[in-house]
């Protein structure tokens, strides 16, 4: 492979950007779910 640096750089960018988006949305969803569970008391009221 004579152009290996170009190929490796392209693959790193193409894998890295979706991975960053995935990790970001994972943390964002976890945080939102935790806050929602802390605030939303209607489920407990419905069960009671």
């Amino acid at each position, binding site marked *: 492979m004579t152009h290996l640096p170009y190929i490796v750089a*392209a693959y790193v960018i193409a894998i890295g950007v979706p991975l960053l988006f995935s990790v970001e*949305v994972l943390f964002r969803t976890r945080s*939102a779910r935790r806050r929602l569970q802390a*605030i939303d008391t209607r489920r407990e009221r419905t069960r009671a």
Partner: protein
Amino acid sequence: MDARSSVVPARSGRSLHRFANPGQFLRLSGKVLPWLFWTGGLLTAFSLVWGLFFAPDDWQQGDTVRIMYVHVPFAWLASAGYFALAVSSFASLVWRHPLADLAAVEIGPVGAGFTAVCLATGSLWGKPTWGAWWVWDARLTSVFVLFLLYLGHIALVRAFDDPTRGYRAGAILALVGVINLPIIKFSVDWWNTLHQPASIGLTGAPTIAASLLWPLLFSAIGFTLLFAAITTARVRAAVMERRIRSLLMARASSASGQEVTA
């Protein structure tokens, strides 16, 4: 006042609108999302290993053709993502649907990121093939304009104190920017460009060897599923964040009402 009222569409329960109900969306997307992520991730990994280690070199471009397996799917998704943004914007303007607003807001950054990857990988392909990182060729320039449209949309929807005004302004920009999509598609036919013409079309047979085409198709499907998974997960997070804001506002207004009566 029901705290969920701000996220429930005015005309839910009619035809497709009932599927766009935020509560329904959270339930449905919660089931679909793991499948999208895992299928997309596995297909992408499989196709990239295939393209990187097992697909043959191109007779003319040599091993640089392997960049195609990442560049082309991102180029397709840059345009497809903008089309999805325009469809959400249309739904937002016509039906004033809050889920369409959130979808448009959340597609923007992912589309911009994927367009940036398309431009970067194209540049990495252009240097060894053309001898230049960048040329102001019609295809490259129109994709760069697409990237600017995404950035403009991201900035515009966040530029107003009243979010609804931001959604409306962003929707108009997104719909005006759709004119750029056929320009991107046909730029290689309308102008004499350095960028090669399309090798795969909907009407004719592909002009690319099958041994190069299959890993490309798998890679395109894999990245498309990942794009769908990321945007769906972002819209889910946005729906939950909006519900949190509504609950906090409802709680604050009921607390201030009790103070007044006391």
